[in-house]
């Protein structure tokens, strides 16, 4: 469907041309002013799409960054008489500084708490603005802010000002779209969909979120500065909640996470009240109803509707590229690992070694601490005591106990989850390529490598399918591919054969044996002894957080204590 791609691109260009034609040929001075305001909001909303749409953090501070940018320009411009070349960069820098300052503690919070914390910050800033009249002019604000001066040219109101603002929008939107499509945007999307999985794939979740938050502040500050140059006054209104609501609404009506949606949403929602002006006092009621109708009828926004009319062309698959060689790793030694939840000792002084080129089985009744052990090794839980040492090919062993999951992943440990966790909306290729984002220089190369891994596991044909519709067995296979794409020294698999048919199990066993043969230390948590025993070179049995037996498979399963633990005949 080549023509669809062409139509999509053409409609973008056509929209831009129509906007330009309207501005140059038809718009009244008032119309141009409305268009300028729409540009200001578009810029703020583009930034909001980065943190909220791509990063999934419902920040309610975007209006604040907008307002802070506005006040920096207002104060420096009207109180100190500074000119645009000095005020504009500072109007970007101050919100970014604020974002970095508050972001560090606040971004650790879970969704609703994060939203509320950002709202709290917004309220504090608003109170400061209203109650420090010497600096901000208090409730009245500051008048007499100078206009934009570019290289000695004072930009007049009307068409030139609209042009400058929309040039900033174009620049900002293109930059954001490129970021969103690149490695960084992909990584951020994974952080939104599944932060735990993102961390176990070596992505620094905290840093990605903080960067996104700071970037949103950059756009917010720029928009605020431009808005003050348009209005020539700044008052506490720019910091009040309706600004934030407007930006959030534009992002959702335009289409969450879509840069083009941010621009469309801003143009539409700024003009909507103008179109309903004829209704006089009740026009804002109609505006509210229109907003309600929009979110109910088009939950994926305008861009989502356009996608349904003109489905995006599925991208051609890349040529698979074999993974680069990696020095094989050493053994993983777990020593005295312990973790208690409340009074329950989930893992209680566990020690064992995972040798390279060997599949080690980890067995034990439900609740014996198998999954907790994997969580402790992979960094999702912090152990109370013990060491996790990974011998590198050429380095001395490092203690990874208590390290962050992304550091553990970078050291060469990969894992899968008991309930395969893949983002529903991503294609299989995208999901597996996420494992390479931290290592490969580009998305294209990450996908080429990912395809090679999928083909090796015999599921290359799934590459273009969305993960959401996959049956359980294939989901597990894709998750295994994602873990293997990390080229780990140690691979931890949590019940990889659960729910598979006998044929699928035999196939999986063959693949796991091949992986181990390449020098990987593999740990398999499994209940199915028929699957595990022929595959494993060694088996560790756990019960109530302690190692009951550790040895050759045949010996361990006949060990009286293991038999007793499984059959529940009291403790030995």
């Amino acid at each position, binding site marked *: 469907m080549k023509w669809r791609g062409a139509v999509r691109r053409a409609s973008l260009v056509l929209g831009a041309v129509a906007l330009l034609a309207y501005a140059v040929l038809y718009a009244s001075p008032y119309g141009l002013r409305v268009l300028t305001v729409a540009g200001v909001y578009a810029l703020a909303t583009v930034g909001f799409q980065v943190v909220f749409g791509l990063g999934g953090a419902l920040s309610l501070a975007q209006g604040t960054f907008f307002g802070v940018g506005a006040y920096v320009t207002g104060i420096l411009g009207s109180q100190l008489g500074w000119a645009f070349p000095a005020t504009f960069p500072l109007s970007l820098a101050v919100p970014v500084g604020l974002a970095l300052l508050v972001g560090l503690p606040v971004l650790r919070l879970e969704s609703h*708490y994060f939203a509320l914390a950002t709202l*709290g910050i917004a*309220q504090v800033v608003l109170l400061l603005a209203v*109650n420090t009249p010497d600096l901000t002019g208090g409730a009245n604000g500051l008048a007499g802010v100078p206009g934009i001066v570019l290289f000695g040219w004072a930009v007049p109101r009307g068409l030139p000002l609209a042009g400058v603002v929309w040039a900033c929008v174009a620049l900002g939107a293109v930059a954001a779209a490129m970021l969103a499509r690149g490695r960084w945007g992909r990584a951020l999307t994974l952080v939104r969909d599944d932060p*735990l999985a993102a961390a176990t794939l070596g992505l620094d979740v905290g840093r990605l979120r903080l960067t996104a938050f700071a970037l949103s502040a950059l756009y917010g500050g720029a928009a605020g500065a431009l808005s003050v140059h348009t209005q020539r006054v700044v008052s506490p209104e720019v910091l009040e909640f309706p600004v934030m609501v407007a930006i959030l609404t534009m992002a959702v009506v335009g289409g969450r996470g879509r840069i083009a949606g941010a621009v469309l949403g801003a143009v539409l929602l700024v003009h909507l009240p103008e179109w309903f002006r004829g209704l006089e006092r009740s026009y804002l009621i109609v505006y509210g*109803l229109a*907003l309600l109708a929009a979110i109910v009828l088009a939950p994926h926004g305008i861009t989502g509707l356009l996608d349904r009319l003109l489905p995006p062309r599925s991208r051609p698959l890349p040529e698979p590229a074999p993974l680069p060689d990696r020095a094989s790793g050493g053994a993983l030694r777990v020593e005295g690992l312990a973790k208690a939840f409340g009074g329950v000792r989930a893992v209680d002084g566990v020690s064992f070694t995972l040798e390279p080129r060997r599949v080690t089985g980890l067995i034990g009744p439900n609740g014996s601490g198998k999954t907790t052990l994997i*969580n402790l090794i992979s960094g999702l839980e912090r152990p109370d005591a013990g060491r996790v040492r990974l011998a590198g090919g050429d380095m001395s062993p490092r203690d990874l106990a208590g390290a962050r999951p992304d550091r553990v992943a970078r050291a060469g440990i990969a894992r899968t989850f008991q309930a395969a966790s893949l983002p529903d909306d991503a294609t299989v290729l995208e999901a597996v390529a996420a494992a390479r984002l931290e290592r490969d220089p580009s998305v294209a190369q990450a996908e080429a490598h990912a395809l090679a891994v999928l083909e090796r596991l015999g599921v290359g044909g799934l590459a273009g399918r969305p993960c959401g519709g996959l049956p359980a067995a294939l989901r597990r296979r894709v998750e295994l591919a994602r873990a293997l794409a990390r080229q780990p020294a140690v691979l931890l698999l949590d019940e990889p054969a659960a729910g598979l048919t006998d044929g699928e199990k035999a196939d999986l066993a063959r693949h796991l044996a091949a992986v181990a043969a390449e020098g990987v230390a593999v740990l398999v948590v499994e209940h199915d002894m028929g699957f595990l025993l022929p595959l494993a070179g060694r088996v560790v049995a756990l019960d109530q957080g302690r190692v009951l037996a550790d040895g050759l498979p045949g010996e361990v399963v006949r060990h009286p204590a293991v038999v007793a633990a499984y059959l529940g005949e009291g403790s030995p």
Partner: protein
Amino acid sequence: MHVLTVAQLLLNGVALGAAYALVALGFVLVLNATGAVNFAQGDLVMAGGMLAVALAPLVPAPGIALLPVVLVLMAALGLLVSVAAYLPLRGRPHVGVFISTIAVGIVLQNGATVLLGPEPRAAPPLLSGGTLRLGELVVAEQSLAIVAVAALLIGAQQWVFARTQLGRRLRATAQDPEMARACGVPVTAMILATFALGTAYAGAAGLLLANQFFVTPTAGSDLILKAYIAVTLGGWGSVPGAVAGALVIALFEVGVSAVLSYPVAMGALYVTLLVVLVARPQGLFGEVARRRA
């Protein structure tokens, strides 16, 4: 500070907190039943206050007589809100409901402006609006009446939820909708009932607040913030926590603004909130969600 002044402030704080508690209670009930934030809750409080203002000339009786009318009409409004802004977005990301209830808030706010004008209005007092002498202490009758009405409504909610079949079904829906449906609970009807109850309580809070504090069409945004903070302080999803959180906010507001000023009180409230959030990222009483990987 004189001990009588402190007692006076305490009563004012508890009265304000009782009204806030109704707002937060409605908010948290809907939150538990749907998992979604009803951002119109503040505007629904305003609507209840405006309704009382509009009804007052028609009912030549003290404000307490308006309470049942406000409760019933607001419950009907709650049903309307859930049908228009929640049911169509069910099963989609919760942020959709966040936006749709913002839209409802915009409609309510501007509807009130068009119908009644932007200026502050006062609802009639619950009883006579006079003062009572308790020894040396002079207290506003309205403050005592607010505490009594709010306590009665909160007690009624607790009783229904703890003791009746309807309450068991409502709780089952809030805990696990899938499981409740499997057990034969009419989940959709329960969610509608929760919206009706939450909105009725918002309306009651509007009636209680709109005498001493007046009501303006834009009053909602301040109230939703306080409900949000109360629910966070009390532990996201905890019903007694929301009531406790509302009382803490009101006492803080009244106490600090008496000693310093209202803006300082608000600033201190938000800063305290931030410190609490940073020190305990799961909220004061919240548990860390752990994934069974």
